[in-house]
């Protein structure tokens, strides 16, 4: 009676922990990603996209920097100089905004603008305006206007389409920036008087600068452009300085928040790999007190050494492996010892371990442990290939497999330990599984800083 009850209980636990289902999910997605991964290896390298995180206006500089592998500040300075020298620099930027998709999306604003009739009408209405401006300026011999008229009108047309057709996220971003610009970046609670004072002094300095430049206000003529420019810059700083400062601060805050979130995710992945896995194993062997005690002791030791001695569980490189092949051998050895399943590892090429490769190994180890524990197969194959541009790892078993259709996408095992970990390091994870035939996990990370 009692035994029967225990058994039923045991099965319930096994169901709750429903191994495969919990650990692997979302096949429609993964199949697509798999095909893309196989036939379009260099996704993300080849396509020029606007950066979502590295943006001041549209993220064009951030995207260019990522594509060219240059520092974003350098790209920004070049773009600004280009824009100052020729109005077409500005126009090119706006067009890039229109025609480049933002990171993580494939649709461009231009594609959406095609169905925006009103916007197109406004743009077409700008053409006669351009003609008028050009005619008037050439009549007045105002070269300045005629050289800047075309690009600026082009930019204006582009901006109209952008503002009308940007998606909600981008529009919110735009509204925020423009609002801050209108208040010149001052804090909302700042008094109106101080705002007016700043506006006044800024404009005064700017006008003074123009005055000095254009008129013979100074006796020494060579000083004129110098002092004038200086005054204009001072005026601009007084006017727009706080706005810039706030933009920069926002950027810093955002970055810090992101780093914190990533650290949390890394920590969660580690806890999952060690503590949660052990707890699951303890539940599976609940009727074997000795086994439970052994598991608990081992886990306690590992947890202590992590918390108090700074050694990470299942980590690579801190002590032990220094190269990819040594790390793979370590996985092979440890998983064989801990789970009694044959692990066949094949490594082609080799590389010294860096952060990306450590993440790859940690995710691969997790996949191997999953296969050893849940698939029921007697052996697991690991294949690792180091190529100059990327390193791939395949973990395959011929076990039970699972039906990934039926799985919630937010479960910890795969979601964090494997997929999340790979994504945080710029890599990809693809899982293919067929019930009754087995499972294959494909992991890959690009190699950074290599020619």
């Amino acid at each position, binding site marked *: 009676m009692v035994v029967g009850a225990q058994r039923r209980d045991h099965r319930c636990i096994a169901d709750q922990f429903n191994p495969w289902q919990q650990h692997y999910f979302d096949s429609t997605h993964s199949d697509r990603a798999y095909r893309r991964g196989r036939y379009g290896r260099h996704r993300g390298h080849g396509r020029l996209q606007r950066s979502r995180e590295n943006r001041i206006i549209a993220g064009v500089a951030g995207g260019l920097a990522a594509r060219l592998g240059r520092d974003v500040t350098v790209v920004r300075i070049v773009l600004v100089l280009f824009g100052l020298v020729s109005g077409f620099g500005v126009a090119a930027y706006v067009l890039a905004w229109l025609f480049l998709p933002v990171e993580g999306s494939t649709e461009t604003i231009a594609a959406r603008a095609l169905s925006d009739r009103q916007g197109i009408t406004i743009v077409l209405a700008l053409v006669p305006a351009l003609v008028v401006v050009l005619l008037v300026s050439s009549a007045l011999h105002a070269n300045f206007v005629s050289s800047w008229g075309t690009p600026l009108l082009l930019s204006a047309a582009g901006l109209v389409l952008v503002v009308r057709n940007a998606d909600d996220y981008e529009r919110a971003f735009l509204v925020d920036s423009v609002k801050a610009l209108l208040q010149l970046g001052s804090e909302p609670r700042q008094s109106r008087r101080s705002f007016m004072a700043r506006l006044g002094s800024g404009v005064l300095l700017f006008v003074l600068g123009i005055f000095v430049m254009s008129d013979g206000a100074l006796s020494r003529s060579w000083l004129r452009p110098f002092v004038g420019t200086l005054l204009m810059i001072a005026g601009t700083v007084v006017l727009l300085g706080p706005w810039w400062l706030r933009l920069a601060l926002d950027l810093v805050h955002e970055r810090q928040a992101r780093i914190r979130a990533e650290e949390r995710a890394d920590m969660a992945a580690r806890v999952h790999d060690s503590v949660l896995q052990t707890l699951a194993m303890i539940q599976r062997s609940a009727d074997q007190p000795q086994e439970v005690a052994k598991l608990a002791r081992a886990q306690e030791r590992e947890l202590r050494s992590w918390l108090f001695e700074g050694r990470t569980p299942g980590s690579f490189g801190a002590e032990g492996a220094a190269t990819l092949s040594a790390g793979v051998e370590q996985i092979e050895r440890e998983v064989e010892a801990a789970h009694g399943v044959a692990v066949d590892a094949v490594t082609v090429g080799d590389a010294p371990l860096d952060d990306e490769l450590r993440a790859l190994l940690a995710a691969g180890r997790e996949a191997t442990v999953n296969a050893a524990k849940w698939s029921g197969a007697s052996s697991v*194959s690991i294949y690792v290939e180091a190529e100059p541009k990327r390193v791939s790892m395949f973990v395959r078993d011929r076990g039970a497999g699972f039906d990934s259709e039926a799985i919630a996408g937010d479960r910890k095992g795969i979601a964090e330990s494997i997929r999340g970990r790979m994504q945080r390091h710029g890599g990809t994870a693809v899982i293919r599984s067929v019930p009754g035939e087995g499972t294959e996990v494909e992991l890959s990370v690009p190699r950074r800083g290599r020619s």
Partner: protein
Amino acid sequence: MKPTGVPTVFLVDDHHLFRAGVRSELGDAVEVVGEADEVPAAIELISERLPDVVLLDVHMPGGGGKAVIDAIKPANPGVKFLALSVSDAPEDVIGVIRAGARGYVTKTISGPELIDAVVRVASGDAVFSPRLAGFVLDAFASMPADLEPLGSLDPELDQLSPREREVLRLIARGYTYKEIARELTISIKTVESHVSAVLRKLQLSSRHQLTRWATERRLI
């Protein structure tokens, strides 16, 4: 193959227990015509009994599997060799293959897989374990540009075709020939011919890498 229908097999391994294990795993699927635990005895018995397939340990006192192949092969081209080893040193494995073995499997292989491998070798095909596929990919990996005497590069022998590379990768990932055929939507026969082509290149190529790389792993 003998008229009886099952291939005849000869075991060469210096571990008695291992020979007994293999014998029982092979069961009735093949006819074991003899076994030997050292090189001279193996050479003598094999030349006498002329089996279809010799299952050969890579590491043995007295010269190893390579010495056996070197002694038998010239006079008896009909005898085929399948290397069977726990040894993971690439230079040993490649050495045995270059001496003339038609394949290499590790001792952890399961009974049915081993029988399948023996039958395959007996019928003239090549058998690559994931590990051997990995070794070969590694050996052929470096770009033709680093072949020292530029004139010695023979694209027919010294390079793998993209398709061969693909097949080897799948073998290394643990796919069976059948699964590879399905994955690449080609026939099993085509997979076999790719593997045989790789074996031929492995045996005939004069690439310096094949010998040199064994000592130092390719670090990129």
